[in-house]
């Protein structure tokens, strides 16, 4: 295919210290395509955190690895976001919102007027503009500036916001949609009666050359079996609920497990397990990979997943995954790979933990299939091939 024309990738956040699956996928995809010879821009905010959206990176243009040009635009939050909080409560409760209320909900948050107008002026210079995730203002507002060349990677979860009418135009009017998994695609089709062109491209991962589990234990002074959670420690990921369930399971069930966690967000462990919870905060990718390899199992408590990179990372390290069945994506991966356990309530969660505690060899045997599952489906070369094919089909070079 002809790798001609400039590609613009528009993650809500980009750069060191940014935690988030959608952002990671878009970053690696952008750099992967740049390595294949594409001219790539990243258009993003100056924010690192998706709660405060505080501008921590400098606005402007810089060239980073692989020749990727990064254009940063300042976020603007000009209100107290009180109205958004009210609407959030209504959305969570399933109360219907009028269209004007949905628009106010969207606009009472971070906004990017400078990015919007940059795209208004320059969108014609891009062959494709790739936005992710669907939920935030950058993809919603800026993704509608040049819909004929917009590809949305929604990273859709079965969350109340997904059902708001306000999102119909971006799912039906963009040039194309890239989904990360079949269940995500099924969900989108069930919500939006008329999707634009779409393709399930999956997501790729870089395969670590080696792991150092013993070094990880030594560096952090961690002994004995432990389970692990990496990512955003927040309610939306069921983090607190899982922490409570873990505490009940290990205390009441007498399980010899600790919990190692890393990522972004506050960790307030119940007092009875405070000495068993290790919060490492933000760590390097290499350190995180070593942690996966050292863990007895990885816990994925989130019900809102469109792909779950962390499950793949755990499987690559040969580690068992214990995942919440509330996410169709989690269940789909575990069923397809045969390398993960799924729980639907706290009792099942405790039994999963008991299994890996009492039968670690059997657990390791089950988990072994996970690495090949990831290698077969989710490495970057075939994903980037699919990405290039759909760009060529939807937006042929002229």
């Amino acid at each position, binding site marked *: 295919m002809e790798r001609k024309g400039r590609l613009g990738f528009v993650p809500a956040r980009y750069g060191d210290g940014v935690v988030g699956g959608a952002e990671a996928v878009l970053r690696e995809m952008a750099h992967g395509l740049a390595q294949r010879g594409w001219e790539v821009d990243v258009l993003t905010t100056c924010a690192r955190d998706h709660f405060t959206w505080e501008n921590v990176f400098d606005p402007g243009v810089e060239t980073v690895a692989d020749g990727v040009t990064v254009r940063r635009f300042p976020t603007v939050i000009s209100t107290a976001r009180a109205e958004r909080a009210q609407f959030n409560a209504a959305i969570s409760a399933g109360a219907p919102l*009028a*269209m004007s209320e949905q628009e106010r909900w*969207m606009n009472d948050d971070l906004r990017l007027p400078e990015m919007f*107008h940059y795209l*208004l002026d320059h969108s014609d210079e891009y062959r494709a503009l790739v936005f992710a995730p669907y939920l935030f203002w950058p993809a919603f507002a800026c993704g*509608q500036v040049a*819909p004929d060349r917009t590809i949305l990677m929604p990273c859709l979860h079965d969350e109340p916001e997904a059902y708001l009418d306000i999102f119909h135009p971006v799912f039906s009017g963009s040039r194309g949609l890239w989904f990360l998994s079949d269940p995500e695609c099924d969900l989108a089709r069930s919500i939006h009666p008329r999707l634009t062109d779409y393709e399930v491209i999956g997501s790729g991962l870089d395969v670590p050359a080696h792991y150092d589990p013993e070094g990880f234990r030594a560096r952090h002074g961690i002994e004995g079996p432990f389970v692990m959670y990496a990512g955003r420690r927040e309610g939306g990921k069921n983090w607190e609920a899982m922490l409570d369930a873990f505490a009940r399971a290990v205390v009441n069930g007498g399980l010899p497990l600790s919990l190692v966690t890393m990522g972004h967000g506050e960790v307030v462990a119940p007092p009875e397990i405070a000495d068993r919870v290790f919060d490492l905060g933000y760590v390097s990718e290499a350190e995180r990979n070593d942690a996966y390899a050292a863990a007895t199992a990885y816990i994925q408590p989130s019900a809102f997943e469109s792909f779950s990179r962390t499950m793949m990372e755990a499987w690559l390290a040969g580690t068992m995954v214990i995942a919440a069945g509330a996410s169709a994506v989690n269940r789909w991966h575990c069923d397809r790979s045969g390398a993960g356990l799924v729980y639907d309530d706290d009792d099942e969660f405790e039994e999963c933990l008991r299994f890996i505690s009492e039968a670690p060899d059997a657990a390791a045997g089950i988990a072994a299939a996970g690495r090949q599952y990831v290698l077969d489906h989710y490495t970057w070369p075939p994903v980037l091939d699919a990405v290039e094919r759909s760009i060529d089909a939807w937006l042929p070079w002229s």
Partner: protein
Amino acid sequence: MRILMVSPYPPARDGLANYAVQEVKRLRADGHDVEVLSPGPSAAHHHLDLVGVRGALALARRVRGYDRIIVQYHPNVFFGDRPTPSERSRTYAALAVAFRAAHHVEVRVHEYPHAGAETRGEATAARQMWAAVDRISVHTERERGELATAFGIAPARISIEEHGANFEKRTNLDKVDARARLGLPADGFLFLAIGFVQPHKGFDRAVRAFSGLAEHGCRLEIVGSVRLDDTDYVAYVEDLRALVSATPGANLREEYVSDAEFDIWIVAADALVLPYRLIWSSGVCERAALYHRPVIASRIGGLADQGGAEMMLVDDDRELAIAMRSLAGLVDDVRITGNWPGADRTAVMDEIRLRASRRSPAGASMGGTQTVAPVRQTAPLRRLRPLTMPDARSARPGASAMKRVVRRLTAWQTDPIIKQVNQLQQAAIEAVADRPADPSVPASGPTAR
């Protein structure tokens, strides 16, 4: 030049925001430094509650730093809901202050109270505001006259800005692909009514006028979202749903469509039906014109003056029904009114031929897809009147009766011949129309003699 645009703005989805962003894009492309101020948070650089005296005075403090202020004017932005005459008076006066504070103010009037001012005080204040504006523009000649009359403004001060001047296409699909994309049948005549579903859009009138057309293979698609925050609108939509469900071939799609999809719907349609009860100028008409789709619309507001779209204007529901039947090819008398080319004889002749072709079954390739070249090629054939039997009437006593008898006796021989001749004429017209035009013969050009 440093310009401040005052307007509702995306991602809000309404006609004014859509209009404004297209003008901003054009101005920025022309090299101007354009910032936008919207009434609430949006993609605009600034936002400000513009309602009432407070809003107008806040605006006054913002305008001084710009060379040019462009206001996309709609009363709701500045006056809020149901203001009293005294509230309006004060707001007009405050807006006059704001406009005087600016170096240069242009007001694009999209809507205004057509009855003018209710009290003498309001009239005075309104005149002050309009006097403070350097350039007033509307979209149509009719709006110019009405605005001038309503507020005592000299018509010469009001210019006409084409509604679609900054509009750009948002899809490159053709009709076949557009229908496939929307999951619509490839065949059949498709009427489209699109926009926010509100009482004043009159989509219910389209449904009633459509009644009976489904049996001729026609469809009516009503596409648009409902603003649920207005109880009148909700009641209207419930009535519309019931009406649609009782009308075969009609379909109501309560969808919040993207800008691109809006255009895809237009491309998929053979004709748009816009039986507005109230409108001053229509962005939908302009978008239809971009894709050369004919529009049936009410003869209200400034629609008759809007350039671009091929319009069939109707005065009542009966005319609406006739117009829909006509465009669908069910009656021969299709009249498109207004919107003639300027003083260009060749263009006018082309237009005459094109419109005339649509009024006869021979030229009825619906939906504005007929081009001038085939119309010209088929003209000699179309000028031949269909063969009919000679008139049987006679002034001589008894001759008429005799002729009728002869006709009855010979009809079994003559009628098939007449039918065959007329079919040959029709086939010849179609064959010529389908033949590619001779590239050496210009479709438009100087006429001989």
